[in-house]
């Protein structure tokens, strides 16, 4: 633990990083799948799915958090069953992961969907005539070509998860050392007289993490785009 942070500050930073990594990692496979379905398939209820995915982007975060509480709280209609098998999300850091994942999901899906729509489906046809099964076509042609979009989507989702506040504080509260993420900690410090310097240090951390993520994603995306453009 670096000594320029107090234990409370550090645990908030560490928790936010952990929550963001898990939220991004766990939602990525589903994000790629949903993006694929929205980009390529026509089915009844597509607009409903599209609306559901995008809802957290438009709803007040506090509403999303409350809906999560209703659904995944210990007495919620999904939460009560999870509770029976020993999984509790509300007021736990795992709940923060869920909240962050839900809030970041639309951004992730949008970025990936755009990159899928840019892939020429005729390349996939060509791969299938060369003997590749749909799974191999996806792994050897589609996936490499949408990789820049996946990275962009993952970084956006990570940055969003680092900054998620409204839904998180509603769903898992703001318990130091347990569910107090970076934004929650900043909020708490700002509520205390004289807490401004501490809040400001965390603000700097926030800005640094966000910038680093953006620079990294830009760099990786460019390298891959060069590869993918075939030059």
């Amino acid at each position, binding site marked *: 633990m670096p000594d320029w942070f107090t234990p409370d500050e550090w645990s908030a930073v560490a928790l936010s990083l952990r929550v963001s990594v898990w939220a991004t990692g766990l939602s990525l496979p589903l994000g790629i799948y949903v993006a694929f379905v929205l980009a390529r398939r026509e089915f009844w209820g597509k607009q409903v799915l599209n609306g559901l995915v995008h809802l957290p982007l438009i709803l007040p975060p506090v509403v999303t958090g409350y809906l999560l509480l209703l659904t995944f709280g210990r007495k919620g209609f999904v939460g009560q069953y999870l509770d029976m098998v020993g999984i509790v999300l509300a007021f736990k850091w795992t709940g923060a992961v869920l909240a962050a994942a839900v809030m970041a999901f639309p951004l992730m899906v949008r970025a990936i969907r755009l990159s899928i729509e840019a892939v020429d489906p*005729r390349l996939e046809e060509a791969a299938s*005539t060369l*003997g*590749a099964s749909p799974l191999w076509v996806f792994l050897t042609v589609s996936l490499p070509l949408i990789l820049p979009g996946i990275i962009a989507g993952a970084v956006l989702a990570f940055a969003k998860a680092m900054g998620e506040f409204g839904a998180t504080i509603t769903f898992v509260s703001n318990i130091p050392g347990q569910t107090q993420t970076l934004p929650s900690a900043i909020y708490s410090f700002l509520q205390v007289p004289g807490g401004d310097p501490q809040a400001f240090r965390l603000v700097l951390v926030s800005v640094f993490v966000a910038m680093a993520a953006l620079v990294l994603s830009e760099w990786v995306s460019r390298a891959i785009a060069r590869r993918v453009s075939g030059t």
Partner: protein
Amino acid sequence: MVEVQHRFAGFALEAAFEVPSGVTALFGPSGSGKSTIVKAVAGLLRPDRGRIVNGAQVLLDTATGINLPPQKRRVGYVFQDARLFPHLTVRQNLLYGHWFAPKGAEVSFDRVVEMLDLGPVLARRPGTLSGGERQRVAIGRALLANPQILLMDEPLAALDDARKAEILPYIEQLRDSTKVPILYVSHSVSEIARLAGAVVLLQGGRVLRKGTVGEVFSDPSVVNAMGVREAGSVIAARIAAQDDDGLTRLETSAGPIWLPRVQGALGAPVRVRIAAQDIILSRQRPAGLSALNILPATISALRMGEGPGAIVQLRVGEDLVLARVTRRSVGALDLHVGTQVFVVLKSVSVAPGDVGTPAGTLS
């Protein structure tokens, strides 16, 4: 064997034909259903009704519900737009289908690279290749998948004339060196005249005529479908002598003709294409004419056009050729079926290869 029926908005396709070894050309104007048929053979489109059999393997039979997915059909598909994978090198592109092909594949990587001259570009990426190079890679990629039939869907249509001339010899060499039947889609009469052994002529979704290139291209009834400027027959010849003055003597079934130097060994088969509009007919053997190539012929069919033109089919030796003349000339020369005439060839084009008779029969 290909049998396909498919209904589009305002357009019905109904075609049945066989693909013998060698090159079978699917020929017709755009919108005649060529590409639809090829897509159906590859499994990229499911026709309303149809049956497609490759050797002993049923690829599609809508009556019994068999419909193999593209990856199980073992077709090599060369697309008009190459469709190389941009994220892979030329080498990786070439080996893509090879990887999925059954082991013990007959085609070797080195052989394909050598035949298509791809050695210098193996390490490059598709984005840096010229159009002609891209198409060569696409052909090699399809071949290395070890297909049982090769589908070439207007592989030259996106290229300029110089690039076309660059690729055609490779396709000729491929035709002469592989046993894999090739279904070649084109709307270019000259490409087909150079490459094809058999021709399936499509118009408005139906087979207008099918047969060997010699039969189809010398049929007066297909002239309109080919376009009067493009119409012309293809006959077989052999290189008989390389004369000192730069001319080559070719032996046709009706006698010798001379052309500016044709490369090739003595005895090598060549295909001679004679455009219908490049023939002059004469009742007597012409004298005092600069034209070198004059052959005796007998009129075997006459077809009057609706305009001022007429199409004359002539038997020249064992071959049939078409000539386009005016109706006025038909009257003035008193031309009838059976009339003996002389054909004066104003110009002909020559390509290597045998016109041949396809190994299989067209039904």
